[in-house]
């Protein structure tokens, strides 16, 4: 039963891909291109079985800013993030490949590799066999905030604060599923693979692995609900990994296979993307040979209220509000500066909720003079790390966590 289901999925994927490749757009590409004639090859359209940008956008808030159309990427600016729990329609949008339209009845999750027995589950079987967990957890694209880097680094031009969100997820623990399969000795990494197709048959599948310890963390989930409703297609319907606190690429969407490995997976999305230099390089230089895989986000915060350039009355107190988070460990404190970082005062920090959830901070301030007033927010984690004013440059523009700055106009 499992076998037939799985092989039927595989063959439908194969037919699908050859259908795309045979669609004619590429057949002549090599030849025309080799001669470098000005006649441009026809532009490939989005293949069937994938979700259109219109459909995705219709599920998103009007405050969403789109950074590219093919693939669709988008996020809301910091002042549109003023929620304790990120609403689904404000969660950032980012894929490497296309967004698949998956029939949940056909979808299965297979667990393979260094396991005692290979197993596979339908969504209903997952729900029936394992305890469901709901938790709030941070997801943030590795390149979030990239446009702050100078010189500009290559990749999605996320705005100042970037592409991130902290919704509630419901699913089962990856640990429970891995235990059901039983891990062999030597198991070191778990790779997630999703059903997102590329535009051509040669497109490398997006496969990313995480160390066993992170996979076994009780907060690492195979989730089917986001904020109490089934995942929207763009966010991984019907099933996705949620590896909270870590770069978004670890949280494989449309996940259909978990493979237990004895070492980190060696594909391009592990070795050429989602890496930073082991030793920092001069800004504008290429990636050195020694690199480190991108995992947990460093400490970060943003001011979500007031909005940039808001008008406030000099006689009124301003309540600054924001969110602070860190990929592992916990937030120790958040400080605000009203003098460009010369002095800092503590903000009030809401008590800790779920381990990987962001935390709300507030700061009441009575303006001392008229004119433009700038608030800077700086978070500290409990290991003594703080946000820098400017993050260290790296070739792919990852992990921007520089201090966020919002100015308002104080009027009489």
């Amino acid at each position, binding site marked *: 039963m499992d076998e037939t289901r799985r092989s039927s999925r595989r063959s439908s994927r194969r037919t699908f891909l050859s259908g795309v490749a045979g669609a004619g*757009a*590429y057949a002549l*590409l*090599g030849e*025309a*291109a*080799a001669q*470098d*004639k*000005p*006649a*441009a*090859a026809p*532009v*490939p*359209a*989005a293949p*069937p079985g994938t979700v*259109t*940008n*219109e459909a995705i956008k219709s599920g998103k808030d009007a405050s969403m800013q789109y950074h*590219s*159309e*093919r*693939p669709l990427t988008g996020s809301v600016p910091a002042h549109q993030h003023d929620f304790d729990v990120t609403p689904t329609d404000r969660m950032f949008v980012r894929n490497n*490949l296309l967004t698949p339209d998956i029939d949940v009845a056909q979808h299965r999750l297979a667990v393979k590799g260094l396991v005692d027995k290979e197993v596979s589950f339908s969504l209903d079987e997952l729900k029936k066999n394992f305890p469901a967990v709901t938790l709030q957890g941070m997801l943030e694209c590795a390149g979030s905030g990239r446009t702050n880097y100078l*010189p*500009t*680094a*290559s*990749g999605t*031009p996320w705005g100042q604060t970037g592409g991130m969100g902290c919704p509630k997820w419901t699913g089962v623990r990856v640990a429970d599923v891995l235990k059901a399969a039983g891990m062999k000795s030597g198991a070191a990494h778990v790779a997630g693979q999703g059903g997102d197709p*590329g*535009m*051509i048959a*040669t*497109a*490398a599948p997006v496969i990313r692995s995480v160390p066993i310890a992170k996979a076994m963390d009780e907060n690492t989930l195979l989730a089917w609900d986001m904020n109490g409703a089934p995942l929207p297609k763009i966010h991984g319907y019907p099933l996705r990994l949620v590896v909270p606190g870590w770069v978004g690429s670890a949280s494989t969407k449309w996940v259909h296979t978990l493979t237990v490995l004895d070492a980190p997976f060696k*594909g*391009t999305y592990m070795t*050429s*993307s989602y890496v930073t230099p082991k030793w920092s390089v001069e800004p*504008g*230089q*290429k*990636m050195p040979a020694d690199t480190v895989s991108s995992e947990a986000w460093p400490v970060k915060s943003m001011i979500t209220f007031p909005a940039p350039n808001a008008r406030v009355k000099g006689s009124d107190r301003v309540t600054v509000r924001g969110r602070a988070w860190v990929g592992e460990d916990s937030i120790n404190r958040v400080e605000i500066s009203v003098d460009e970082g010369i002095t800092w005062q503590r903000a009030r920090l809401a008590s800790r909720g779920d381990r990987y959830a962001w935390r709300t901070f507030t700061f009441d301030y009575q303006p001392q003079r008229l004119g433009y007033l700038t608030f800077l927010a700086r978070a500290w984690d409990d290991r003594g790390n703080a946000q820098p004013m400017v993050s260290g440059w790296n*070739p792919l523009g990852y992990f921007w966590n520089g201090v966020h700055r919002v100015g308002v106009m104080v009027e009489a």
Partner: protein
Amino acid sequence: MLGFFCQAGLAQDADKLTSGPGSTLTENKCKICHELQHIRRTPLSRGEWADNLKNMRERGTPMTDGELATILDYLSAYYSRDPAPPAAPDSLSSAGSDPIAKLLEAHACSGCHTLDKRVVGPSFREVAQRYAGEAGAAARLAAKVRSGGQGAWGQVPMPPAAGIPAADLATLIGWVLAQK
């Protein structure tokens, strides 16, 4: 679905790269999976482009070594973050308030030319040497700069400078031809 196709078609008709040797090849290869804005939005150093192309090949771009080399040359010439090579002591940039330097700057000539080193285009000294004493050289060169062109020094084209005032152009060409 139809709406999407139309919209995608429209959006990508405008999706082009600067025309130059290798631009069609680059367009054809690089728009398969994503928009060409990925290239236009961030100029990179040659080393970063080399890394990017290695990465794009791993991600599934069908391209031969020869095609990769052509695309790398094209991207590093037309979408480069590298500053022009440092100016030699006697070159234009050291000329300060020199009116010629200002004209070259204002009409963007200095992005591609210096007095004595090849950058994208030939050095002005080698241009002067080549056409020394040639009748009608000034008029021909002025026309060439205005309309752009390639082939005299290699296969890299000079883009047209259509909007340049005739007086500025005459001053510049006169000055170029006077270099020794």
